[in-house]
């Protein structure tokens, strides 16, 4: 074997090694800090997403990180998390007046299931390294389905992430939206695993929809951009059609993606659990606004006993996990419910696709509950019948 005496020549340069103790202290500091909200900004190419981001940065003195999500092949996605949701390796950081680029460290894939996506971990490590930002804006590609991205950032509280999902903004081009909505193709998001022989039938026998529908259905806020380029009458009919798809979202008409106040579109998470807002949700329960592709259904819920609530929970699991209501195929994108129990407890349920969370709330906002469901294949009569069978 060769004799190597590399150690006897030049003195090597000193290297800096951070101690584990410093790491531990960093961790303690991090735990005390408040979490950073993240808003997903979605919409077709050219609708005005970047314009909106620039306006937000101009209109606020928050320290904002902007992450651009791309469909990349060179990044190895984590198990369980979509290949269309990789964060590009760099992201733009706006620190008051100046912008600069920050490089993200993206880890490997993972042998066992990791609960966190690569992109989430990368953003968390950025928060640790650069100190907290006040806000993260995540811009998706034009044709992205915001659902999986939202789920990815909707982490269990136990994971003590430094990031939380605040809301989803969809930017719409008023001139092209009608065309975009009607340009339906079969959603190729779920493909079959031919080699394994295991297939995903989730989306089978549902009416095909366009990405525009999907992006609208997930939104908390819809920016109806380029409003100046359409007639008042057209704008009204577009707004009505959008509300027929997603009755929960706030619609804000804009020109050059300019909103009057960023407070209307950011920091919505607290608002979302605010029960006073519930009274304002229009119940599009009649068939007048029923879009046969994606629609919002609102059903009243009576004050429930523990037993009825348990039955309702099972109904919810069937709806969200099995995609079935009384043998009718459905696909739920978002769900909100207010549950009032006869023991005077009140809960808010939030759902994104098959994930839902039940949050106890202290105030009582009205005497009874309701459930609002946005998704494909929803029919008021079928849902109503199935629900009343369940909780009675």
């Amino acid at each position: 074997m060769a004799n190597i005496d590399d150690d006897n020549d030049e003195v090597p340069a000193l290297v800096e090694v951070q101690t584990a103790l410093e790491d531990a202290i960093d961790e303690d500091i991090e735990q005390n800090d408040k979490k950073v909200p993240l808003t997903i900004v979605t919409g077709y190419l050219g609708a005005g997403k970047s314009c909106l981001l620039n306006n937000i940065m101009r209109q606020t003195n928050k320290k904002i990180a902007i992450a651009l999500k791309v469909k990349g092949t060179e990044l190895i996605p984590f198990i369980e998390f979509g290949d269309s949701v990789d964060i590009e390796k760099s992201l733009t950081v706006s620190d008051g007046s100046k912008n600069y680029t920050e490089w993200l460290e993206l880890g490997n894939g993972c042998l066992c299931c990791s609960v966190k996506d690569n992109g989430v971990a990368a953003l968390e490590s950025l928060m640790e390294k650069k100190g907290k930002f006040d806000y993260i804006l995540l811009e998706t590609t034009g044709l992205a389905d915001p659902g999986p991205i939202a789920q990815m950032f909707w982490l269990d509280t136990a994971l003590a992430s430094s990031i939380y999902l605040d809301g989803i903004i969809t930017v719409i081009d008023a001139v092209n939206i009608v065309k975009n909505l009607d340009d339906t193709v079969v959603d190729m998001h779920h493909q079959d695993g031919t080699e394994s022989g295991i297939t995903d039938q989730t989306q089978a026998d549902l009416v095909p929809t366009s990405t525009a529908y999907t992006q609208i259905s997930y939104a908390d806020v819809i920016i109806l951009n380029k409003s100046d380029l359409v007639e008042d009458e057209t704008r009204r009919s577009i707004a009505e059609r959008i509300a027929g798809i997603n009755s929960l979202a706030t619609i804000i008409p804009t020109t050059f993606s300019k909103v009057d106040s960023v407070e209307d579109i950011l920091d919505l998470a607290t608002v979302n659990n605010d029960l006073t807002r519930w009274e304002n949700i229009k119940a599009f329960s009649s068939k007048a606004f029923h879009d046969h592709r994606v629609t919002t259904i609102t059903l009243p819920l009576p004050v429930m006993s523990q037993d009825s609530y348990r039955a309702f929970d099972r109904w919810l699991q069937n709806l969200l996990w099995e995609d079935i209501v009384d043998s009718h195929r459905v696909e739920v994108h978002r769900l909100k419910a207010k549950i009032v129990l006869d023991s005077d407890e009140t809960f808010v349920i939030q759902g994104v696709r098959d994930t839902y969370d039940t949050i106890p709330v202290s105030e009582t906002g009205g005497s009874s509950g309701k459930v609002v469901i946005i998704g494909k294949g929803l029919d008021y009569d079928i849902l109503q019948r199935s629900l009343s069978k369940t909780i009675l």
Partner: protein
Amino acid sequence: MVEVQYPKPCSRAECENLASSLKCPTCLKLGKDSSFCGQDCFKKAWPTHKLVHKQLQPSTPYDPFPTFSYTGPLRPVYPLSPMRTLPDSIPHPDYAKDGIPHSEQRLFRSTNIHINTADEIAGLREACKLGRKVLDIAAAAIKPGVTSDSIDVLVHDTCISIGAYPSPLNYYHFPKSVCISVNEIICHGIPDQRKLEDGDIVNIDVSIYYKGFHADLNETYYVGDKALADAESIRLVETTRECLDKAIEIVKPGMLFRDIGNVIEKHATANGCSVIRTYCGHGINKLFHCAPNIPHYAKNKTPGVAKPGMTFTIEPMLALGSWKDKTWPDNWTSATVDGKRSAQFEHMLLVTETGVEVLTARHADSPGGPISRIS
């Protein structure tokens, strides 16, 4: 085949000249051809170039990440042995070639949980039986002084002898045939040249791919008499073992996957252990990892309800200190953030009409098994 000699560029990365015939003498001794344009360039390249020698020198153990802030006393001991191969006659999973599990990626984000047919169940049962055999053979080799790499060789060769592919090999480019995680390593330890020491606890995580089906199981073992006399390690290992048993007890049709974490965390907390949250149990069948996703911590919102014919793993990882993890720069090895010890147990389960079948169950003569706590 005749190798055509082209003028090579100088071995110093920043240099744009072509190399002369001058070569590094040390590299030559180690069997590598490193040509430089001249002595000056070689001198400039020396500080970085000499590192190449260490990598070429199999007998000199070294820490590949000397500047990394390790959380505990354990260090990787490189060089890793070369990646092992298998005869073509053994069925390979799709990622064996390029490291990417294409069939799994096609189902990304799908939460549709596969229900196995009777034939598939028979295949999974057979794979799991062999998986248990491989783990038991590997575990029997554990003793102070044995390297994790030699256990990897044993797992690899046993797989070949039974006609199975070791599932971890090249899965997302994992370099070895088994995961071996010692002391503060939570999971995904890469077998290397470190010798097991009296007093260590070691987890061996075996996964095999047999006739188109994956099996996945792991256990944590005590190394030497010192470990068997270490009250803290015993509390950790036995609590983890019990957590898995208690979780399995609730599995039956109608069970919500989100409830598994509640059972595990309750027992862990009662015994002064924390539950690692970053890694989950998972569905497994013709795919190595698929839906459902099964967190081991309480109050998770993972979707899904157990139905007859579903197969998945439960694999709690517990720690004596913090639940937080830190990954080594090898991008795999996961260590506890405070360097305190961590243990793990894993079974692969089949939901039956009336309850559960532990597909990877122990035999009466399997190495390891529960021991009494020392108070």
